[in-house]
């Protein structure tokens, strides 16, 4: 266990973080000026960390592959951000947010990390409002809240369906302020292609300038990977086209353990796949489940239009199966339930792989409230619907527009057709309480780490975690490392370790460019995605996973023999970028299957068909699997499992029920 010391502070759960903060070693301002920090990724975690650390006086360099830090995929988060503010007076508290998150994660997250997350959640909202983030407000001028899955309180703060955009632009503006002051050096259109370790300690990175193709060496006393999740291993996901695992994977190959790689979040409400040409899937925010009811026809293969199917012939299966939480069950539960109905033959739409998300009931409910508010007597159904539609439009207008744009159908008139899609990855680089990986000096923040969501993340908690890590955790925890680094002089990038790392990257690029095979990078990516979705997706089983591992191995061999990467190394070459990322996804895909195969239980997003109750619910095995899987890279296709035991001292571990 010596290799996996989570460094959780002693003491009562409620006081661990407070005590840690007041006892963590500090770095004096003069020393901060000579300590350099590299941050890879400029999403919520990266931008927030960069701004906060630069404000403290550290010298910061930020790298992102997009043309501007504002493009990071945090921008696409729609629904909201959780915080235990209890502004609604509905009984929320830090403990409840902590409890909901542990339970939502199917008892596979660390208590101390999650409690800290809940503790700082309120500060995040304060910070964002102070930056000018325009959250939704009530007429009295105070902040508005809505509900998200897996909770029974209203604690989600939002800005229409663009919460991620507004939070990221807030963090981005703080980052740009530091750039303008010269405290942060920004490297956009740069991709990190390896970390550089000197004497077992992370001391920098090799990055490629994506415009000129030039490889660069950068030194840092510490390196923070804030590079997001790896959902694109499935090819089709709600991630951005460029979202990738490369930074995290390169770090993994250099000694950083990978935690719980098989925990993937399949989001229940996405626009279904429409054809082979599809390049990505689009999410319809979980917030829609506040007002949308999910159903399928009771009759198989019902050819009628949804609006012609009478109420009694509809199966509101979530409300039926989970009356306590209804349409607001957590994502893993809602996704599996949709799959169950479709697999049983009740799916709708041309592919029969979709269910309805219907707003008519609540449009009419809102309409009736409006009618009462405006003293309209004897209003007809059309008037009620019209007024209700306005209310729904104000809440979700941009999402409805997006749906219409993509499908060509009007969701105000017809229920949306939705189906689960890959959305988020709970797994990631293993980190301790300080967010440091198993490589000293190398940290992972936000979706890139494995830490807070266990086997399933609750809605509106990704934004919370990214910003918590960046604004409120790393500025403290990094002190415990950097306080010992004040005597370390900047290492010259002529040091042999940098030369070796750069040569290795150069070699790998040259190899990709000289294969000159017959198939495009996308060809391989699509095939990998299909293997992963079919055999390591919403449901997994031993046989399928074993097959997947073999198929991925041979896909990897074929890729390195037959991929065609056009262009050269010394130019703007998006095909080359993609090739490197897909090569890493193939290796990761294998590890995900290995992890899924090892975990002989069902929990959260990891559903092994062999382990389910008679009612089809996930069947956990707390005796044998209450641990974090942390995988060590031992060479191509060779991974060693380390276990971090999960101890529940404050929450009674129990079967998860939303009934």
């Amino acid at each position, binding site marked *: 266990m010596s290799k996996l010391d989570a460094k959780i502070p002693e003491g009562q759960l409620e006081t661990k973080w407070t005590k840690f903060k007041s006892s963590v070693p500090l770095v004096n301002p003069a020393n901060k000026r000579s300590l350099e920090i590299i941050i890879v990724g400029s999403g919520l975690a990266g931008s927030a960390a960069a701004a906060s650390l630069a404000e403290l006086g550290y010298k910061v360099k930020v790298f992102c592959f997009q043309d501007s830090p504002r493009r990071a995929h945090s921008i696409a988060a729609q629904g909201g951000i959780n915080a235990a503010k209890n502004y609604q007076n509905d009984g929320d508290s830090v403990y409840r947010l902590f409890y909901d998150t542990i339970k939502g994660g199917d008892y596979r997250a660390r208590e101390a990390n999650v409690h800290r997350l809940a503790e700082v959640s309120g500060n995040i909202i*304060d910070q964002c409002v102070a930056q*000018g983030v325009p959250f939704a407000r009530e007429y009295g001028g105070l902040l508005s809240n809505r509900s998200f899955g897996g909770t029974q309180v209203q604690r989600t703060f939002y800005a229409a369906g663009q919460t*991620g955009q507004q939070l990221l632009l807030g963090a981005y503006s703080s980052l740009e302020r530091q*750039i303008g002051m010269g405290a942060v050096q920004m490297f956009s259109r740069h991709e990190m292609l390896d970390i550089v370790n000197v004497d077992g300690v992370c001391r920098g990175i090799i990055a490629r300038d994506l415009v000129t193709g030039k490889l660069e060496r950068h030194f840092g006393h510490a390196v923070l990977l804030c590079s997001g999740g790896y959902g694109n291993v499935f090819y089709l996901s709600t991630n951005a086209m460029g979202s990738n695992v490369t930074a995290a994977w390169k770090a993994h190959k250099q000694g950083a353990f990978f935690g719980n790689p098989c925990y993937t979040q399949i989001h229940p409400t996405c626009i279904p796949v429409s054809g082979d040409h599809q390049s990505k899937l689009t999410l319809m925010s979980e917030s829609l489940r506040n007002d949308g009811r999910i159903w399928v026809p009771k009759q198989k293969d019902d050819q009628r239009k949804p609006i012609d199917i009478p109420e009694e012939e509809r199966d509101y299966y979530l409300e039926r199966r989970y009356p306590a939480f209804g349409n607001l069950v957590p994502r893993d539960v809602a996704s599996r339930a949709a799959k169950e109905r479709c697999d049983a033959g009740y799916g709708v739409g041309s592919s029969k792989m979709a269910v309805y998300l219907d707003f008519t009931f609540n449009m009419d409910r809102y309409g009736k409230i409006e009618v009462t508010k405006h003293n309209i007597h004897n209003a007809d159904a059309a008037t009620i619907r019209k007024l209700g539609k306005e209310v729904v439009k104000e809440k979700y207008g941009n999402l409805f527009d997006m749906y219409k744009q993509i499908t060509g159908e009007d969701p105000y008139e017809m229920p949306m057709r939705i189906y689960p899609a890959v959305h988020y990855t709970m797994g990631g680089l293993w980190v301790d309480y300080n967010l440091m990986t198993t490589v000293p000096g190398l940290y992972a923040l936000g979706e890139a780490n494995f830490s807070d969501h266990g086997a399933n993340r609750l809605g509106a908690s990704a934004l919370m975690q990214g910003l918590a890590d960046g604004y409120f955790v790393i500025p403290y925890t990094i002190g415990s490392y950097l306080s010992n680094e004040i005597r370390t002089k900047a290492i010259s990038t002529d040091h042999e370790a940098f030369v070796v790392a750069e040569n290795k990257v150069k070699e790998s690029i040259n190899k990709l460019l000289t294969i000159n095979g017959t198939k495009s990078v996308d060809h391989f990516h699509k095939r990998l995605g299909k293997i992963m979705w079919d055999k390591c997706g919403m449901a997994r089983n031993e046989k399928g996973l074993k097959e997947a591992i073999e198929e991925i191995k041979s896909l990897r061999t074929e890729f390195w023999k037959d991929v065609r990467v056009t262009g050269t190394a010394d130019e703007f070459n*998006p095909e080359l970028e993609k090739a490197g990322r897909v090569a890493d996804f193939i290796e990761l895909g294998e590890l995900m299957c290995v992890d899924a195969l090892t975990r002989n239980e069902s929990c959260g997003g990891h559903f092994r068909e062999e382990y389910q109750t008679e009612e089809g619910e996930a069947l956990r095995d707390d005796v044998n699997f209450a641990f974090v899987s942390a995988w060590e890279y031992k060479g191509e296709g060779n991974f060693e499992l380390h276990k971090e035991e999960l101890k529940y001292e404050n929450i009674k571990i129990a079967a998860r029920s939303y009934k």
Partner: protein
Amino acid sequence: MSGNMNLTLKVWRQKNTKTNGELVDYKVNEISPDMSFLEMFDVLNEKLITEGKDPIAFDHDCREGICGMCSMHINGRPHGPLQGVTTCQLHMRSFKDGDTIVVEPWRAQAFPVIKDLAVNRSAFDRIIAAGGYVSINTGNAQDANNLPISKDNADEAFAAAACIGCGACVAACKNASAMLFVSAKVSQLSLLPQGQPEKQSRVINMVAQMDAEGFGSCTNTGACEAECPKGISLSNIARMNREFIGAELGSEKY
């Protein structure tokens, strides 16, 4: 693929910033009306790669209309024929079988072409760095509800903050002016109490940076508003002009 549209594309090809570019003709066949415009480009690039040719470089990332990275000038209009839609959300059902479609990069001195359809928009970042923020360090904030903001102001600030920084406003403007982009940020922060302490320095510094980047002047033609995929209103420009004049005349500093 199962599509039935056959199209001719005239696409701007340019090797890098230093070379000259030209429009090159391409045929794409069997395009489905359900494809997005960028997925049609994926099909074309796949074909070019198979033929051993250099695929077309274009910027794109989220493909859901929010990151602001996609930036194609389609048949003379930024983001194509529809209003309120980014290139990635434009679908082929907006075109007809047999159409010829001209695709160019954003054209502006301040947005040099990197390759083909990808341009450098870092000028926008530098404008934000000049003042598009509230100077609040992490950890200094009061409780969020201690600062009530009227719903109308909050909504108006949100409408301005919806800008995705894509640069369509600049591309649409005959002067390549960035006034809509800059004014959206100035407006957002001047509508909110948090933005008041730096109100004057913000507008002065952001406008100065905008000028330094080589963007043109605003002559109120309104093309920016018409082409903005997020419906950012011209009234923001009016507000910024008021703020600017107020800052110039009312401040002792400037």
